[in-house]
């Protein structure tokens, strides 16, 4: 039986991990909500952002967090461009299915270019505070993990405020809920969808930078992330940002706690067990709305 302090330490690690998962999954569920697009390349963009942070840090020595000033707008623009130039060309009838293929190819392209530019060598940002931490009620919290969690929390809060309290957010939610009705109300749903996609990709910039703070990165790392993230958004209910966040926290915590009793290999399967259980007993997800029921 693990000691109480170890359990508490694992809970702390689980919360920190879940926060990062929540941010990474939020973008993914947004694409689906706005556009019914399954964005396989989301995690490839995460790794791209992580590489940009690493590269900027290596070349100029600036703190990787500062790269967000560039990468967030850049990724937003890339998202809008990708939606307007590529995804709108897919036939609406087969959009969801074909988007898997299209974004899969985008993911492969990004991975290939990263490998070409930076080779397959594993990279890590060297930070003065990478192993710093502090005591919290007997548990130890690493500074970088807390920063990553803070970034995730801020980005999610920003997303929430934007969605709930701005005209753009209202339009975006209207587009998610019922596209035709939104059009009847005079919302330019194509433009909104483009911005929504950009917003999703902007979260990838934040998530990737957070990721780069505390892990080694390599071009094919994104395959490791996309599976758990897909599972999270299905469990949370496709298209539901709060659902994705809650599912991410829950599964991140479960993974962390399961590692106490099971091996790391088995603890990772929690995402897929949750995915199977959700599809078998509650295909619309646990927190999602009506949207997911149609699929």
């Amino acid at each position, binding site marked *: 039986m*693990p*000691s109480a*302090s*170890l359990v508490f*330490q*694992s809970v702390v*690690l689980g919360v*920190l*991990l879940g926060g990062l998962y929540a941010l990474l999954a939020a973008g993914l569920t947004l694409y689906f909500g706005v556009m019914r697009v399954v964005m396989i390349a989301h995690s490839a963009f995460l790794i791209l952002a992580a590489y940009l942070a690493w590269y900027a840090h290596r070349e100029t020595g600036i703190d990787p967090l500062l790269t967000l000033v560039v990468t967030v707008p850049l990724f937003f623009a890339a998202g809008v461009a990708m939606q307007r130039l590529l995804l709108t060309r897919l036939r609406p009838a087969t959009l969801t299915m074909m988007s898997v293929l299209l974004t899969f190819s985008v993911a492969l392209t990004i991975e290939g270019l990263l490998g070409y530019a930076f*080779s*397959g*060598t*594993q*990279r*890590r940002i*060297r*930070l*003065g505070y*990478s*192993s*710093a*931490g502090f005591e919290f009620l007997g548990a*130890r919290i*690493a500074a*970088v*993990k807390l920063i990553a969690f803070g970034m995730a929390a801020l980005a999610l809060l920003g997303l929430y405020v934007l969605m709930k309290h701005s005209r753009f957010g209202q339009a975006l939610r209207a587009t998610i809920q019922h596209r035709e009705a939104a059009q009847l109300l005079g919302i330019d749903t194509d433009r909104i969808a483009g911005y929504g996609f950009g917003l999703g990709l902007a979260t990838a910039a934040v998530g990737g930078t957070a990721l780069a703070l*505390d*892990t*080694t990165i*390599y071009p094919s*790392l994104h395959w*490791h992330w996309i599976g758990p993230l897909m599972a999270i958004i299905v469990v949370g209910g496709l298209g539901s940002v709060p659902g994705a966040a809650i599912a991410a926290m829950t599964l991140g915590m479960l993974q*962390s706690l399961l*590692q*106490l009793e099971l*091996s*790391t*290999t088995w*603890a*990772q399967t929690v995402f897929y067990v949750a995915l199977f259980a959700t599809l078998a007993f509650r295909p619309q997800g646990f927190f999602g709305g009506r949207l997911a029921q149609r699929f």
Partner: protein
Amino acid sequence: MRPTRRLQGRIAAGTLTLALAASGCAGGSGSEDSSDDSIVIGVSLPLTGDFSEPGKGVERGYKAWAKIVNDKGGLLGRKVELKILDDQSNADRVVSDYEQLIGRDEVDLVFGPFSTRLVVPSARVAEEYGMLFVEPAGAAPEVFDQGFKNLFYAAPAVANDHYNHLADYILALPAGERPKSVAYAAMDDPFAQGTAYGLKEKLEKGGIKTVVDEVYPPNTTDFGSIAAKIADSKADMVVGGSQYQDGVNLIVALQQLNYQPKMAAFSTAPTEPEFAKAIGNKTEGILAPTGYTQKADYPSNKEFVEKYTKQFGKAPEEDEANAYTTGQVVAAAVEAADCASQDPECQSKLVDWLRGNEVETVVGPLKWDDKGRPQSAHMIQQWIDGEIQIVLPEAQKEADLVHPKPAW
């Protein structure tokens, strides 16, 4: 998978025998001794895919060996020529590559590929054809458990023996200084696990308790939970059966939890050139086994380091050195047996010679047991004053082992 592959090998071997018999009946002249006189050596390497980085290192080592040999006039007065195929790190591909090299291209000799996962299937092909199979990178126990008779591993020691010098050192410490409990974390990989479990077995036999024994999949990047378990156990010593990124991530995760062991040993990662930078120079006291160092003063090593550096613009690492060693081992056998061809008599002469003799290489003198396991041990290095230095064995050491290790 295995029975199928073995069957394929048999069928292919059968086909080859038929083909040879047919050509023998026709009385056709052997193509290899008429057209050109070079010794062709067939290799399949993972030049793309998962093992592409080390695979390219092995390729450079082989190329350096061929160049150095040819610059001196070749082997038995004949030039050596490498025929290298890319197996894409794929175990099925590596089998068909070696079948092609031996069967269709009729190479005179073969060298092994990189890493256990590719060495085992390709060694089986070489075995079916009766070819000598010297390999630079299959150190896991399963390589030697297959009953291969033609296989030789061209490095100082198999994975489980990497820490032998360290185990001896620890068990010889006075009881008060000896670590009492050890935490092990190993990647789910035959080589990485082999290193950690070799040490574990010896320390457990010596009465040192195992308090954590974790295995993680190769793609793990989050080591928070494993580190939490190790830190909670307060083990005196931590041993990582690591490759590269996992070792780095685990060390940083342990440092984040402010875990301060008296001894810390990790395989592979600490010997990589990027290591110190990756963990922000908090390397003090970390131990690692190594099979090769550019500084070793074996006569052929000086030549290798100098000529390799001239050819490639940087000094060779362990993968390059083990590939070069493979070349040296095969060359020694070829010169002693005075032949280099697929002829079964020649190949068995090569195998028999290696079975009974010692070869001088860039990693020191090597000899093998009847399963092809090299009989030396790895040196142990330690990070001292920001530099990795040899601390064990006594005869080769550059510095004294620091124990207990300073805080990291």
